[in-house]
Structure formats: C-alpha cells, structure tokens
C-alpha cells in the first residue's frame, strides 16, 4: 500500500470552471479612498467662506489662528494672518469667514477690535479679559459684497439693527458732547450721540444722534435740540438759574430735546433729518417764537448791564427779549448812542391775555397791529431801561405807560420800527438832582454874603443910635407908666377898691335872677298851659 502512496495516488482536485478575473477587485479600495478624499476636499472647499482683509491702526492682541471674528457673539470666522501693510503704517489682518456668514461681508460692514474699555458710559468688553480680544462685526445694510475693509477704532455705539432713528444736529461747537453722550427727552435717556464731525466748510459741527424706538416718534419737525451738558448756570435779570439734566450729563455732557410748540402736523421727523443744536434750553425755547416783531430802541443813556436775552416786559409781563445791544451813530453829527434791538413776541403778548383774541388775525393783520401800537404810544407807551436786580445790576427793558410825554409817531416804513423811549427812573432822578445842583450853583452866595455884611454894619449903627437916644427916653416913659399902674392898682384891682365892691354886688344880683328863671322854666315844663292861663293856685 505504501507503493500506492506516490504522487499519482494523491487525489485529483475537483475542477470548478471559473471566470478568470484579470482585474483585481482590490482596486476598488483605492478608488473608494480617492473618492472619499476628493469628497472631503470638495466639501472643505465648498464650506470655505470668503477670505477678507481688514486694515487696523494696530492689531491689539490679535493672533493669527487664535483670534475669532464674532458677530453677535457668534463665531463667524477666524484670523488667519496678521501682517503689516506695505508701507508699515497699519496692521493688515486676513480672516477666513464661515460660508454661512459670507452674506455679512458687504460694503458697509464694520469691524473693530473688541477689548476691555473703560468709557464715560461704563465698562465694556470685560469678557475679552478671559477669552482674549476678538474682532467684532457689525452687519451692513448694503447688498454689495466686499472683501477688504478698514477697521474702526471703537465699536459703533448703536447696532445697525437696533430700532430707532438717526438724526443729524448742526451746532456751532461740540460743547462737552462726545460719542456715547446721552440724549434726554424729558430727562429720560432715550438715545445717544453716535458720532460727530466737522462740517465740510469747517464752520459748524455735525453731530449724529440716535433716538431709540419708540421714543423716536416724539421727534417732529418742531422739535428743538439743545446742549444739556454739564451745569448750565446763568446770572441774568431773573436772578441765578441753574439747570442740569442728570449727574451723568453733568460729567459727560448730553443733548436734550423737546417739542415746545407743535405746529399741528406733528408727524415724526424723517430719518436722518437735520436739526439745529441750540446752546441751552432757553435759546432752544426762544426759537419757537415764529411771530416775533423786531423793534429798535435808541437810548440816550448807558446800557451797562443790559445783555442779549434780557427780557422785554409790558406792564411787568414778559413779551419779548433783547436780541442785540450795540452802538449807532451819525458820523455827521458825531452823536453816537446805544441801539438796542428787541423782539416782541405776539404769542407771548397774547398769551397773557385773558380774553380770546384771534392770534392769527392779529398776526396776519399788520395794519391792525400797527394802529394798536400807535394808539398805545399815543397814550404814553414808552420803553425804559430798568434794573432787574440790584445785586447783579442786570437791566431789562420795560414798556410802560408814562404820563406827560411828548407825542411820537412811529415810522412804520423803517424796518425794524423804532419805539420811543424814556430815560430810566434812575436816570430821571439823576437828572432832577442834577438840575437842583445846577440851580444851587447859580445862587450868588458871594454877593449874598457881601450884602449880609453891609446889613450887619447898618444894623450895628442903628443899635448904637438906639442906645444913645432911644433908651434914656424909654426909661423916663417906663417910670411914668409905673406911676399910672400903681394908681390903677389902688382904685380898680385892690380888695377894698370901690370898683371891686360894686362888681361883687352886681354878680350876686345876677345869681338871684338866674335862680328865679330856673324856677320859672321848671314850672313851665310841668305846666305849659300856664303861659296862657297863668299860674294856678296850688291845691292843698
């Protein structure tokens, strides 16, 4: 059996016909691997958003590959490169933005570096102490895509999607307003200053403010804005007035607005509407007077203490204000005197009226207005400077009725028309005292003295003569008079003088007569019939 176990005895394998594969199935593996790799590559490329460059003044705390770009605190990208600009003046950041946020990268999108800031309105960006600085994004409204941006120094104060309206204010100067300064409406903080700039011509300042919704609807075309900065202290004819908005505005300044008088069509102002920024509340409030008539006053006295804005009163009620104080003169005569420009507000004037007067009628009818004023002037209406406060010496213009003033005709052809004036009370008094002094000066005191001297000399002579001639005569006469008096004493005044005796008896007689009359009158009172019938006998 062992011989049989040779090669031939090994059993033959069973033949199974099979299709020979010339191409190995294993090739599927690299194909799959390639497909997966390509797939991921494509996905990565597709998921890759735009790459943007932002130019900053300095890349404060920015690190490539570590700093995020955040919009509403959501990561939308990452800084990939930080380098200097070609002229070495600025930092250029390259950031890759997620594809999902690619739509944010438009023309007016703003970027800034968020880091902790201590500003007038608080501390911001404290979170960056932990997380490190990041690049903040503020979405733009444009639809035009952009990839290159200039970074902001500071984050924008108001987010673009915050409801509210932006307005532009024009001011002479910036005052103490800064970005972030509050905006007050009835002392309620309703917005902020979001920016300011010098006007193109350099003559004014444009301040951009933002009023939050729903307060923005209170801004109408008639709204006045004024600087509510710090402490507004004024020393005027009305005394000392201090006005502030809030402690915050005292420190960092602010702007307030109010609609003093609405013209009826109080529609909210349009977006980006332009307003004038007044220096203070009074100025803003005063500007509302539409119906103001200018007049000019020509005083002949010093206007020291009269300032612009000083009140003009009619019988003590304020009806206008001083708009300008200056000098005016005629070069020919060389007469230079103060000229005071005032405005009389019809609205204020009529506001004091307690009876219904159609404002419009009076405002529109100029002739009526003129005739009324002329009649008042005829009756003695005069403007006069008066001291509003003894302490400050501030003057105001008082229009009051004065008696015994010459008639004046107002020349309406001139504009502004001139109102007649009278010297101030103080001036009047001064003038009178002056007059008295002048009269006193005119008294010839020297001559009077001389005359008096002469008179005294003559009197002296007279007295001498009297002494020498009159006195001895008088002595004689007096002695004679003495003798007469003595005789009178003995005959008339003495106790036992006969005249005395007779007088005493006569008096006793009169006394008795009086008693008889008294008895008669008493009887007559009780018995009036006795006049006719006679005295009846008394019954027992």
């Amino acid at each position, binding site marked *: 059996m062992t011989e049989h176990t040779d090669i031939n005895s090994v059993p033959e394998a069973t033949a*199974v016909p099979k299709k020979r594969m010339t191409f190995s199935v294993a090739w599927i593996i690299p194909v799959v691997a390639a497909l997966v790799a390509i797939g991921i590559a494509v996905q990565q490329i597709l998921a890759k958003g735009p790459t943007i460059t932002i130019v900053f003044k300095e890349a404060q705390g920015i690190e490539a590959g570590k700093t995020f770009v955040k919009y509403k605190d959501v990561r939308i990208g990452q800084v990939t490169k930080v380098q200097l600009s070609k002229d070495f003046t600025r930092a250029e950041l390259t950031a890759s933005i997620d594809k999902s946020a690619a739509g944010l990268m438009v023309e007016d999108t703003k970027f800034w570096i968020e880091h902790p800031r201590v500003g007038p309105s608080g501390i911001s960006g404290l979170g960056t102490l932990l997380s490190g600085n990041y690049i903040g994004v503020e979405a733009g409204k444009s639809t035009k895509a952009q990839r290159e941006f200039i970074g902001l120094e500071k984050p924008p104060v108001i987010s673009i999607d915050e409801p509210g309206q932006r307005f532009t204010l024009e001011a002479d100067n910036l005052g103490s307003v800064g970005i972030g300064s509050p905006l007050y409406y009835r002392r309620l903080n309703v917005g902020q200053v979001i920016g300011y700039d010098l006007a193109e011509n350099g003559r004014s300042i444009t301040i951009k403010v933002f009023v939050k919704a729903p307060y923005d609807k209170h801004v109408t075309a008639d709204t006045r804005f004024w600087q509510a900065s710090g402490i507004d202290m004024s020393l005027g004819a009305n005394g000392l007035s201090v006005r502030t908005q809030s402690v915050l505005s005292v420190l960092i300044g602010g702007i307030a607005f109010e609609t003093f008088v609405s013209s009826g069509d109080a529609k909210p102002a349009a977006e980006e509407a332009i307003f004038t920024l007044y220096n203070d509340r009074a100025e803003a409030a005063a500007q509302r007077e539409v119906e103001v008539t200018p007049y000019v006053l020509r005083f002949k006295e010093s206007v020291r203490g009269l300032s612009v804005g000083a009140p003009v009163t009619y019988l003590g009620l304020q009806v206008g204000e001083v708009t300008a104080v200056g000098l005016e003169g005629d070069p020919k005569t060389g007469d230079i005197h103060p000229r005071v420009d005032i405005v009389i507000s019809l609205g204020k004037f009529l506001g004091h009226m307690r009876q219904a007067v159609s404002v419009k009628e009076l405002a529109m009818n100029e002739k009526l207005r003129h005739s009324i004023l002329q009649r008042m002037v005829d009756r003695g209406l005069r403007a006069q400077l008066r001291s509003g406060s003894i302490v400050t010496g501030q003057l105001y213009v008082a229009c009051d009725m004065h008696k015994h003033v010459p008639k004046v005709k107002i020349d309406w052809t001139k504009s502004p028309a001139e109102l007649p004036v009278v010297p101030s009370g103080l001036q009047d008094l001064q003038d009178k005292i002056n007059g008295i002094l002048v009269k006193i000066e005119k008294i010839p005191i020297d001559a009077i003295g001389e005359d008096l001297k002469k008179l005294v000399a003559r009197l002296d002579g007279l007295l001498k003569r009297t002494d020498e001639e009159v006195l001895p005569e008088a002595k004689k006469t007096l002695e004679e008079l003495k003798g007469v008096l003595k005789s009178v004493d003995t005959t008339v005044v003495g106790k036992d003088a006969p005249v005395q005796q007779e007088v005493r008896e006569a008096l006793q007689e009169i006394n008795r007569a009086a008693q008889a009359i008294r008895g008669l009158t008493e009887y007559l009172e009780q018995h009036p019939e006795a006049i006719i019938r006679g005295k009846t006998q008394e019954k027992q």
Partner: protein
Amino acid sequence: MRAGALTGIKLGLVSCESCGLLSRPVKVDEPGHCPRCGEELELRRHNPIQRTWALIVAALICYIPANVLPVMVSTTLASEEEDTIFSGVVLLYETGSWPLALIVLIASVMIPLTKIGALAYLLITVQRRSIRGQGDRLRLYRLVKLVGRWSMLDVFVITFTVALIQFQPLMSVEPGYGVLFFAAVVVLTMIAAETFDPRLIWDSISE
C-alpha cells in the same frame, strides 16, 4: 534557499492554506478546491501583486489628506486651533521636546511612507523577477509587517486626548478628518503587507 529548489508547483502539488492538505491542482491556472475542506486552492495568492498594489495606492491616496487635514481640533475660550500631524511635530520641536518630536515624526510620518515605499519596492522587484537580494527583501518584508502596528500610536494619542480633554467650555479637543485618513493609511498598509505573498520573492529563482 538555493536556486532551483523543489517547489510544490514544480511537483504539480498544492497545499491547502486552510487545512494544510497536500493535493494536486486540477490545472495550474485553476487549481480548484481542497478535497478535504473545500477551500479554494491557490498555487500563489490570487492576483497578489495587483491586490497589494491597489492597497498601496489607496494608502498613498489617504496619506495626502491624512497630512493635510487637521487630526486634532483643540478649542479653548480664546481660540480654536487645528493641528495637522506635521504641525504637531513642529510644535513639539519648538517647545523643546525634540525626542518626542522625533518619535512622532518617525512613527507618524516616516513609517507609513516607508512602508508604502518598501511594499512598492518589493512588488516592483517581484514583477521584474529580480533574482538578487531575496533574503534582504524578505527581511524588509518582515520588518514592514512588524513595524506596521506602531503607526497607530498617533491615532491612540488622539483618541486618548479627545476622550480626556473635554472641559467644556474652557477647553475641548475633537478629532479631525485627518485622523480617519491616517488610520486608513495604517490599516491599508498593514493589509497590503498581509496580502503580499512573500513566496513570490523566491519564484523567480525557482524558474
């Protein structure tokens, strides 16, 4: 291992790779199935060179994204950092731990590449029926098989790191796509090494 050694093919015999039974193939082209266990018989592995090539090519393809894509994404409060294998090496080197950098460089960058290169070399020599240095080539092959598993070092490191560092929101580490491809490279090269039939090295001598 001298030339002209007796081989199963020369004798017209084939051994079953499953049960080891020696049998005579039906045809040299189609040896048929094992009469004992029914396993398909192979004089040499079926299409061995093509299969190995395919795996090597796949590994090579995967090698590119494995190095380009991040293998690890570490997120901290301040930043998000993506690390590729090579940036990891650079980082280790820059922070002063060059021995570690060297280990990672060798294990993760050089070894997979060397394996692919070595296998490609073996395949080319087999295809060209080279008769020189068979012993060296065999030692190379054994080295490739031995060293293959160590390439998974990087994958392990990343797996551990990802599992351990999860301190949301302070810091967290997540695997990147790169690590998948890297693992694929390692696995594919290991399989390629397995599919390579070292018997082929000697076939040119036997002929």
